[in-house]
């Protein structure tokens, strides 16, 4: 949610059980303003909070200029919102590794994870000793466990998996195609990958709040007045603010469903798989429609019907719910 809507948004979502403490709100009020000024962002978004077992991360994103999905930058605070530092983008390989880590985040950005990885064994002849990336890996392996030793693994992305030749690699019966290896992933990489994954799951906006202008740019609809009546409690009225994936509907189908080219250029939540991965509730006493993701528990969105108020935020444990199909 927009930094300027922080309090209203947090209050609107408190009914789901998550809120920001007062010290966090007070700190964010100044630190997000500082962030915006320092980077000259057009817009700063409070992205959410990720639970860690020794402390939580607060995440913010900045947008240098008009909305694109590429140019936003992500920042993390591990001191309750007083200071933020940037999270670097992660490689696809690291993102894949991150998706295989389970359990809570540690709460320490320098923590390193050991990940078992099946790497194809390269049987091509090669010098048998000293694979090039080994020293870094060794350092990481020795540093892990105390959780403070991430410094040793510093130097950015974990190296691409490199083959190791040890005892098990010696082919006995049929030569195995893969071997198991440990690679390391730093917590900040895991976190960046997680934020990215949730962003791909999509921050949620009410239909009509963003439109496609004549130049085919996605812009905020200044005259959005909110969803009205029953529309506001239908999943199909809410869209993912991410590059569309289901947009390949035929024009006939789009016409049948009454989709408008400048409103329905994004994926609707109603098309999310599996069906039932979002819940939608309307609370009459607060006048708020709340959406909750069951696939990414902790991903919440809200909208006040007949108003331009909406926003989404993540307040969760940093894990995708892989059991969703059993739980509905």
């Amino acid at each position: 949610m927009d930094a300027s809507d922080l309090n209203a948004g947090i209050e609107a979502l408190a009914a789901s059980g998550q809120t920001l403490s007062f010290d966090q709100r007070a700190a964010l009020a100044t630190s997000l303003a500082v962030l915006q000024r320092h980077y000259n962002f057009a817009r700063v978004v409070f992205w959410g909070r990720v639970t860690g077992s020794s402390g939580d991360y607060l995440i913010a994103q900045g947008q240098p200029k008009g909305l694109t999905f590429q140019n936003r930058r992500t920042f993390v605070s591990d001191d309750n919102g007083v200071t933020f530092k940037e999270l670097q983008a992660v490689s696809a390989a690291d993102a894949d590794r991150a998706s295989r880590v389970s359990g809570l985040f540690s709460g320490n950005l320098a923590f390193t994870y050991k990940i078992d990885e099946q790497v194809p064994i390269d049987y091509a002849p090669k010098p048998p000793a000293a694979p090039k990336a080994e020293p870094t890996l060794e350092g990481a392996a020795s540093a892990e466990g105390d959780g403070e030793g991430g410094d040793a693994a510093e130097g950015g992305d974990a190296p691409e998996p490199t083959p190791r030749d040890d005892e098990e690699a010696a082919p006995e019966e049929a030569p195995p195609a893969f071997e198991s290896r440990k690679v390391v992933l730093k917590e900040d990489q895991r976190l960046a990958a997680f934020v990215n994954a949730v962003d791909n799951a999509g921050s949620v906006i009410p239909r009509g709040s963003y439109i496609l202008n004549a130049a085919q740019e996605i812009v905020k609809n200044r005259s959005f007045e909110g969803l009205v009546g029953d529309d506001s409690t239908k999943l199909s009225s809410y869209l993912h603010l991410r590059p569309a994936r289901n947009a390949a509907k035929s024009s006939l189908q789009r016409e049948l469903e009454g989709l408008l080219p400048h409103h329905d250029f994004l994926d609707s939540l109603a098309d999310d798989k599996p069906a039932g991965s979002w819940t939608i509730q309307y609370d009459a006493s607060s006048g708020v429609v709340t959406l909750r993701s069951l696939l990414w528990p902790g991903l919440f969105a809200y909208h006040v019907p007949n108003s331009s108020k909406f926003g989404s935020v993540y307040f969760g444990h940093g894990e995708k719910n892989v059991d969703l199909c059993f739980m509905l």
Partner: protein
Amino acid sequence: APSVKSSVFTKAEDAVLKQTELLYKPAPPPVDPETGEPQEAPEPNDGTTPNIQEQLYYLQQCGVGFSQEESFRIALAMRRLVEKEQVTSARFFGKILGQKADYVIAEATFKEGEHPSQKEPAEEEAPAEDEGEDGGEPRKKEKKETPAEAHGAGSNKFAYFVCSFAGQAGGAWTLLPDVTPQQLIVARQLKRYFTGDLEAKVDSYPPFPGVEKNLLRAQIARIVHATSISPKGFIFIDGDDAGEGDAPDIGTPFPEFEALDAETLESLDGWRHHVPEVLQQQARVEFYKEEPEEGAEEAAEEEPQEESKPAGSALSEDSPILSTPAWTVLKVNKLIPQYPVVAVRSNRWPGAYSFATDGGKKTANIYVGWGYKFTGQAYNPPLPPPVVADELAADVKEIADPTADDEQAFDKLDEEARLQAEA
């Protein structure tokens, strides 16, 4: 509120009207059936609650939801509960989120003999399997089931009431049925989102003996017995043989309790379970002694027979969930250390929080979450039990079913035979 009327909003506004009525308007005085004149209203029940607004304020400082307005609304609804129902006290258990509506849940202690199960004439004493809870499927009597605990004891020590502001209920409270060991045993094998409808069927494997309200009650029991904690010494636990029956209600510390220093409160050893665990096999809190140990129940396997973590054990004794520690203790308001607030959260039951401030003199537990456990691994639904091999009768000959190849071969033979016959 929206100006365009629609079914959803009309329904929601009905809920608001109902809520206004239930929370703010005192019940109209009853009318004398003979004269038609209003009688004096009966005295409201004298039940008590902790200072819920204050508790939720401290929890808000710990980052646990509830806006101030909602805190007030919940405190007011709790007030109406203890005025209406014959309970001595009630605390706010928390909120379990559902797909269509959320459950706001209160934990209450009925006055002696006032629980519905105690008011019904006791029918059959001895086996007492099925305490007459509705919605349960008829159970097979093949095996002797562990009897449920009577209301007021063990896993049924407290009564739980549910209310929903959002739905048609508009703030009215519904008493949940007591829990049975059979429900607990099956509940442990399930992982489901609640729908928000108390009467919804639970389509599951293994089949759950009850509807959603029974499953809800079972999950509440699991949460309560795993996450009821308080600062060391807050609730008096007398060494080994104390059940939770010896403990005063949470909210009132043992009179001799002395404020703990910040370091103790910030350590896992400074916090104690004040409710014993549910037994793994019997799925009761108190061991059922009538039967000798031979007839171990369904889920009884490798676990040591009848031990569970007693009340009084420290949080530091709880085992981690794979790489994740069982509990996290957080200092809140670190920047103003003179008035520390400590937050404890369960990582095994995400959504279970406790706080302590004022040296532990102010403390409360709360649960706000989806109502399921974190296991650290993907859910594997239990497989159906292996089919029991029946003994074959002597005259039965088993043959393999024909395969597609067999059939094709047969068809070919058949065709050949036909061709030969035609030829």
